[in-house]
């Protein structure tokens, strides 16, 4: 942002061009979160017994395992977008913003992969 010419002062201040796409993805993952979290909460309430044996037996079943993996992707994706907006709204220093957004993306992908790997470990009986 130059301080000199009038065009220099406004150049680069327009639309980021991907706002509508971000907005839509945020809502699509909100819908999948709603469906999968409803399933997750009802399943946990029906399970009742939260011992290691009971929870792993439940999560090893194909439908539970796949739904847990989908939930992991949906949650981390939605959270990544929510935190992106938070950073964009409150961090105005471009260096800090770049650093935080980079960390956020690494953490979001890392978290989702860790969750999927953990569910897969149980589903494929690696500890059995």
């Amino acid at each position, binding site marked *: 942002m130059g301080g000199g010419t009038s065009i220099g002062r406004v150049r680069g201040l327009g639309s980021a061009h991907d706002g509508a796409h971000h907005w839509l993805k945020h809502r699509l993952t*909100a819908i999948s979160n709603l469906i999968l979290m409803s399933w997750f909460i009802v399943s946990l*309430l029906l399970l009742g017994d939260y011992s290691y044996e009971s929870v792993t037996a439940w999560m090893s079943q194909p439908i539970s395992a796949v739904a*847990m993996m989908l939930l992991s992707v949906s949650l981390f994706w939605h959270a990544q977008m929510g935190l992106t907006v938070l950073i964009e709204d409150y961090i105005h220093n471009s260096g800090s913003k770049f650093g935080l957004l980079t960390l956020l993306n690494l953490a979001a992908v890392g978290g989702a992969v860790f969750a999927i790997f953990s569910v897969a*470990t149980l589903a494929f009986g690696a500890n059995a």
Partner: protein
Amino acid sequence: MLVSILHRATGDGMALVGLGVFLWWLGALASGPEAYETFLWAATSPVGYVVMIGLTWAFFTHMMSGLRHFVLDIGAGYELDTNKMWSMLSPIIAAILTVSVWTYVLLRDGGLG
């Protein structure tokens, strides 16, 4: 105004705290019975219950204001009285859902452990 702030606070709070608990839970399950015992010990401690009940409240609050946003996104519910009613009802319904879930868990099972 309050509903909007609550939506962001509960969403970002769950993203930072809730997903951490989620990963601890899954990682402990994948690591084996001892690691899961440690998780259960933490989850059933007084602080653990505060965190779990807080996350449940944050989830239902975010869900209710999110559902309200869906209605507003399709262009409905902008009349002043309708808008005001749902902005007040959303957090109240969320609180009722939170109390219902935990009353069920505590009365039926005596807790998480």
